[in-house]
Structures are given as structure tokens and as C-alpha cells.
């Protein structure tokens, strides 16, 4: 399986994601922002970082990069896409996911390990998790406060599209939302970084519960 990782100017978790893909046993593929080509990827990770320096608004400039057009086609055709942190912000700016990520209510960058609960195992990125499973995952962001209008929030809840929920909210996120998915459940955006806990030497492999799900989905 080929898993692409997009690289925008200012992405800084791209190398971590590529390394995690290798550990998953899949083939990592670098997707340069200037090339409108997914290079035959079977799944795509939009990694964290500060694409275009987060200037203007996190993700606001990256959505216009050349690589986004084929990515949007891929999303529409049901391809699995995972946006992590800045990647989640890029996907909301590109309207592949609803809502927006606002500044943390604490007005500070927050880097810590948080407990989250897997709320939906219907997505391609959580299919290997147990419903209600609790994971400890790192967050590191300044704008992780998920916001959507009440109707959208109600829709997300009703359609089982809240993927991860914080057990202790680090950023003021609506409904304690840590991650959501698209209507088709193939596009997932999460603030926590599963790639940072994907190696026993780093003390935890819990992130692999999420990342490896996409392999299981592919085999079905």
C-alpha cells in the first residue's frame, strides 16, 4: 500500500509521518505541494506543522497549493485522507471537513499528552480501534479549539462523525471534539499526533491503533 504525505512549505511533521508510514509496513510517498499529483497513493496523510508559517490563518494559504486539486478529487472518490493538527486545519480551510479550528481558549500553545476516546470506529482511520477505546495521544497546537455552528455540531453528533473526543479538554473545543470525519467517513481530521506515539522506544505505540486502521480497511 502506498501512503502519500503532503509537504507544504512550513510542514514540520512530514518526516515524522513518513517514518511512521514506514513502520506501518506501507510505502511512504512524498507529495510536494507544487506538484498536482498524488503519485498513485492509496491513502494520504496531511501532516502537522506551520504550512506557510500559519500566516494569515493556519491552513488558509496551503489550501491553494497545486497538490490540493487532486487531493480534493481523491476525497470525493472516497480515498482515505487523514489530516493531523495543521493538516486538520488545512482540510477545514479546503472545506473537505466542516467547521474551523480557533485559537485555544487558554491563549497559549499547548503541548501535552491527552486522553481521548474513540467515538466512531466507522471511519477508515479508526476501523481497528474498539468503540469507546481510550488512547493517550500528544497534542501540540495554538489553534485546536474546534468550532462549528450548532446545526453542524448536531449533524456531526447525529451522524456518528465525531471520531475522537477529549476526556480533558485542552483547548476549549466544542463538544470536546478532538477529531471529526467527512460525510463519507473517508476524510478524517484530528488534532492529536498519532505519529508521535508510534514507536515503543518513545514509550507508546498507541498512535498505531489509528494509523494501522487504514491498512485493515484496504485489505477488506
Amino acid at each position, binding site marked *: 500500500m502506498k501512503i502519500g504525505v503532503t509537504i507544504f*512549505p*512550513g510542514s*514540520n*511533521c512530514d*518526516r*515524522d509521518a513518513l*517514518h*511512521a508510514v514506514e513502520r506501518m509496513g506501507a510505502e511512504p510517498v512524498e507529495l510536494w505541494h*507544487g506538484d498536482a499529483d498524488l503519485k498513485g497513493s492509496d491513502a494520504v496523510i496531511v501532516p*502537522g*506543522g*506551520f504550512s*506557510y*508559517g*500559519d*500566516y494569515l490563518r493556519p491552513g488558509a494559504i496551503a489550501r491553494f497549493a497545486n497538490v490540493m486539486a487532486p487531493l480534493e478529487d481523491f476525497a470525493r472518490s472516497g480515498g482515505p485522507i487523514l489530516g493531523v493538527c495543521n493538516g486538520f486545519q488545512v482540510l477545514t480551510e479546503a472545506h473537505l471537513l466542516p467547521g474551523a479550528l480557533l485559537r485555544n481558549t487558554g491563549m*497559549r*500553545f*499547548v*503541548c*501535552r*499528552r491527552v486522553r481521548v476516546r474513540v467515538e466512531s470506529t466507522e471511519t477508515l482511520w479508526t476501523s481497528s480501534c474498539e468503540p469507546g477505546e481510550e488512547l493517550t495521544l*500528544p497534542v*501540540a497546537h*495554538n489553534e485546536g479549539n474546534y468550532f462549528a455552528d450548532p446545526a453542524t455540531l448536531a449533524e456531526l453528533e447525529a451522524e456518528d462523525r465525531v471520531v475522537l473526543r477529549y476526556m480533558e479538554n485542552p483547548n476549549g473545543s466544542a463538544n470536546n471534539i478532538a477529531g471529526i470525519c467527512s460525510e463519507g467517513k473517508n476524510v478524517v481530521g484530528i488534532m492529536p*499526533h498519532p*505519529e*508521535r506515539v*508510534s*514507536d515503543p*522506544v*518513545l*514509550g507508546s505505540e498507541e498512535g498505531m491503533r489509528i494509523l494501522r486502521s487504514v491498512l485493515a480497511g484496504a485489505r477488506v
Partner: protein
Amino acid sequence: MNIQETYSTLGLSDFEYDRILELLGRAPNYLELSLFSVMWSEHCGYKYSRPLLRRFPNSGPNVLQGPGENAGVVEVGDGWALAFKVESHNHPSAVEPYEGAATGVGGIIRDILAMGARPVALLDSLRFGLLDEGRNRYLFREVVRGIGGYGNAVGVPTVGGEVEFAPPYSGNPLVNAMCVGLIRTENLVRSRATGEGNLVVLLGSKTGRDGIHGATFASDELTEESESKRSNVQVGDPFAEKMLIECCLKLLEEGLLVSLQDLGAAGITSSASEMAAKGGVGIEIEADRVPLRESGMEPYEVVISESQERMLAVVEPDKADRVLDLAARYELVGAIIGRVAGHGELRVKSGGEIVGSVPAEHLAEAPVYERDVVRPSYFDEVQDLDLANILEPGDYNEVLLQMLAHPNLCSRRSIFEQYDHEVGADTVVLPGADAALMRIKGTKLGYAITTDGRGRHCYLDPRSGGAATVAEAYRNLSCVGARPVAITNCLNFGSPEKPEGYYQLAECIEGMAEACEALGTPVVSGNVSLYNETEKGSVYPTPVVGMVGVLEDVSRHATPAFKREGDIVVAIGKGWRTSLAGSEYLEIVHGKAAGRPPETDLAAEKEYSDLVRRLIADGLVDTAHDVSGGGEIVALTEMALAGGLGLHYEEVEAELLIDGDGGGRVDVGLFGENGISFLIAVPEEKWDELQRALSDVPYDSIACVGGDHIKIGDLIDVKLSELRKSYERDLFGAPGGAEVSH
């Protein structure tokens, strides 16, 4: 302005001006004078410190690059090497804390990048005045924001450091940033310019008027007018730096560069003259070809501008196109601004004319000043400590809570949670341990990093303080299981032109050098920051040591946290020279910085540290912590809080602690420092094996892990939850909440 006023304004003395006349054989023009001004500042030229720095040992079996390059480099195994350096950004941070700290981080990252290494870890060693002053709270908050704002975006994890508060740093904070880079040994690059006709390429951001004469500014005392020099502080762009990192690594990977140098203090001048002087060649810079971000800049401004996020490379002519193409791919400005010449001069051209030309070697050779080392009289007063005048407190539960809540001892969580400490996915131990611990992907290897400073100790006794600073770093690395390899240092002192400042500098260096020799950790890079003075006086003399160590198997490491109920707690090196002199207890509870701290027994430190490291490598010990500020009881409480497990001190041991170590005084026993070196914890089934391993050193089993209290005989009995409330405080909270206790 007459000429004397001109060169005085630029920070040059009469003597130095005469020297320039002599070297050039003519009068310099303003541009040339500016070149000398920045290159002969203490910041660039080390005028006062150079003779003293020769005292440091610089070589060792693992050293690939000692001082003289952009960073020191040591070999760590499997073909890997680490490049590292610490550097100050004190003066900029005093007047513009956010950008001052941010560009400090950016600058040290480029030093590492200039060696060809990928920057992989950052640490920050910070010192401020007390938080009850609004200005200090502002400086503290903004410095931490600046470090986070830059480091988080640039994608290099901030994995450790230290923060301390004391009155002498009021208004003159110390902001020292350390960076570590990872590189294959065969890929090391140097900054030496070679090859007449090769091109000089400027990469990165455009050049503006920011930071004109910044190095000169950094080599003067801070006054009320310093605030008006905010324009001397540069503005950082971490996004450009991130692109610069990826671009330079790509250029090196493709073998496109002859040499590489970062642009820091004094901008193009400094970089080009150093590259030329090292290569024994000349460099011609065409100021008109430097891409500018504003119009109307004079040639002298162009060549001394300290605009951030720029690097200078020497490139063979046939590779220049590919270099410029790659710069564009990474959205950077790339421009050929000059060439390597045979004449040995740093020559600046503009409009087809030579507007300045100075032999590069003269710029690189600032005059050197040696002073007599005279013991200042203040020692007579501050070293005098009569414990009879120190009243013993009545309630030690209260004292412990008070100490844990103090900004010098409380949890650093509210700081390090603002830094991304996990990006890169190499951070093995999260912040809060004795040293940061990182892995090297694809190997079993790990490396540990610590920064340490002991300003108060160095003030009370510079020589023993200097030695103790190195020893503390050595202990901290050993606690996590790493073999210390080498150090970098940042020497933060007051004016060397005053006898007191020069004495402190000379003596601290002597103490550090002795410790480096005894412990086998050479100095491979460093930075000097003098003139840390305000109208109120000098900062504490504060050499900061950044030490790097190696683990053959990174999975065999230790942390301070208690891990199991029932573990036996063992003190190693117990029972010598426990003292309140210069202790945190004396400062926090009694508001005193006094006494003469005991001298470090370097041989014993080495023996115990090496032993603890072996115990960890052998898999016998996974819980270890060194005893430092706050003494034994604070160290034990830190271990308990980190692990969420309490501790029961053996009844008879509490008596021994007070009567033996404390000489009968409870506070000396509980909170005295420089007594024991290490605390470790092992399960009962490993006790026999441990005893055999410890047969050659003094040790004692003192306590048992368990419960939810800290209980020390009948002296202390507090619930962990109560201790945690004091310890886990937000240092950025409302002024009332951040009030210090005296």
C-alpha cells in the same frame, strides 16, 4: 561629528582606533570603521575573554570539531555525530523580549545548520529578576512566548533547559539558547572559503535595516536609553528559517557547496571576513547585488545588517545555477553577491567602486586585553555565614510546601507545555527529568542533553561555582544513563573592565576548566556575553554549561519518577559536607544569598556518577535523580510527585540525617546541599544485587516508596495532593499567584 566622536559612538576606544590606523596605514572610512566596530566588539572579537578561554581543554577522543567553527562536533557511534552550541541573546531580550528570544533560537539553529547538521533539539537556559516586579513578569512571559513562537514553527523540539529567578537578573535577563544537530561524520562542512573565483551566494531572507550595530549594542551595559534601541533588535521569521534548513540540507546532500556559514552578529561582514580569514583568501562583496527589503540603504548598512534567516555559501561557478534553482524551490531569495579573491581583503564594492577594503585577518584579530586578577572585597561580607543567626523554622511541613511553591523549585510544566517538545518523534523522555533524552532513528543509540547554571554559587565563590556547574551537568546526564562526552558553554558576566567582573570571569573559567579536565568533558564550543549590567549592578556571574552524553542502548535509561510501591530508596555518596551555604533553602526561607558553598570533590563526583550510569546500563536501576537545589528532601519529593507515589523515610534514618549530615540542625539535614549526590530506587528483589554493586562507595537505604504521603520521621508528614498543589503552579498566573515568598 569629529572622528573621535564617530568611533566612540561605534564603541571603539582611542587605543583601538590607533591600532586600526597602524594596521591600515591610513585612516578608515565610515564603512571600514563600522566593520572594525562590529568585528572588534566583545561579542564578535572576544577581546577580554580570549586569553582566559585558552584555559579550557578542547580535545578528547570523541571530538571531531573543537572551538573555532560555528559549533563543536562529537562522534557518538555508528557513523553519527552531534553538533552543538549554546549562545546568549541577553541584551536583545532585555529590550524586546519576544523577538530577542525568538531570534536567539533562530541564530543558534543556523550555527548548527552551518556545520551541515540537521537541528534536532533545542534547550533554553533562562534567568530573570523576581516575579513580584511587573517588568520581570513581562520579560519572562514574552521570552517564553518568543522561544515557543519560533521553535514550534521551525519544527525543532524544545526538549529541556532551566529557569531561575534572582534579584540580580532584574532588568537584565539571561536568555541562552542551545541547539543540537545530528549529522553523518562524513558530511561535516566547514566555513573556510577556498578557491579563487568561486562565487559567494547569499541565501534566505532579504536584507533590511534591522539590527544595525547589534553586536556593538550587545557589548555595552544596559541603560535606560537601551529601551530606545529596540530598533537594534531583529525580527524573526521562523517560516523562512524552516525553508532555509531544508534548502541548505538539500544543497549539501547534492554536494553543491564548498563551504557554508550562518549570518549572525554583524551580518555579511562577520561571515565573509571569517570565511576569508579561515581560508587565507579574500572576498569581494558587491553590496548592490544583495536583495534588499527596503530602499535607500547605504552600502555599510547592507554589509553589517543583522537581518535574520540568511546563510552565506561558497559555490563553484558551474554549480551556481542549481543552487539558485533550489533556493527558489524552497521559496528563498538566492543571490550571487560576490566572489572569492586572492588578495586577502574583505572588499565591499558599490556602483562599480571600492567603498571599503580591509585585510580579513585584521578584522578577525581583535586586540586582546589582559587584566590582573584581583580578589574583590565583597567576598568577605557574603561568604560570612553564621548559622547561629539563622532561626530554625518550627513547622517543616510548611517549609517544604513553601519551597516547592517557589518559582526556582516548582514545576516547569507551565513553561514547557508552551514548547513543542515532541516534533521530530525522537523525544524519549519528556521534559521534567534531569536531562533531555533523544533517540537516533535506525540505531539503538541515544543521546542526552542538559543545561546547567549556578549563578548564586558562582557569585559566592566563582572558582568552586564554576566547577560545581560542570559537575552538576555531569550528574544530570549520568542520572538518565548517558555517558557525558563534551560541553559547550555560555559565559554570562558583568563588565570585564571592572576588577570584580574580570575576577569572576577568570575564576569561574578556572573552576570550569579544572572540572572539565577531571571529568573528561572537553569544551568544544561556546559563547561569551559580558556587560550584563544595569544601573543597579551586575548579574550573578553565570556560566551556563550545555553538556551532551551518549547512551549505547537508549532503552536502558532512568527517570526520576518513582515507579513501584515498595521500592527501596537508596542515597549514594551520603554524608559529606552537607551545607546551607548558598542553598535554595537559605534564599527562599531566609532571603539570604550567603556563605561559601563546599567545594566539589570532583573525583568522588566522577566515581558516583560513573557508577550510577553503570547501574542503569546494566538494567539494575530505572529510577534515579541527583540532589541539587533544595537538598535531599526536595529531590525525594520531586521523585514522589513525578511518579504519583509517596514515601516513608525510615525512622532511624531521619535521625541519622539530622544528627549526622545536619550536625544536629534539622534544616541542614533536610535542605542542605552538596551532601549526597544521587537518589535511586530499586525493587526489593534487586536489593542484594544492588548492595554488591555499591560495595565500594558510601550508600544508605533511607526510605520506602508507597502511600500517598511524604513522611520523614516525625518532622514532615504531608499528603502528595497537597504538595502537588504547591508544586504544580502556573508561573504565568495573576501577579498575586506568582508572588514570591520573600
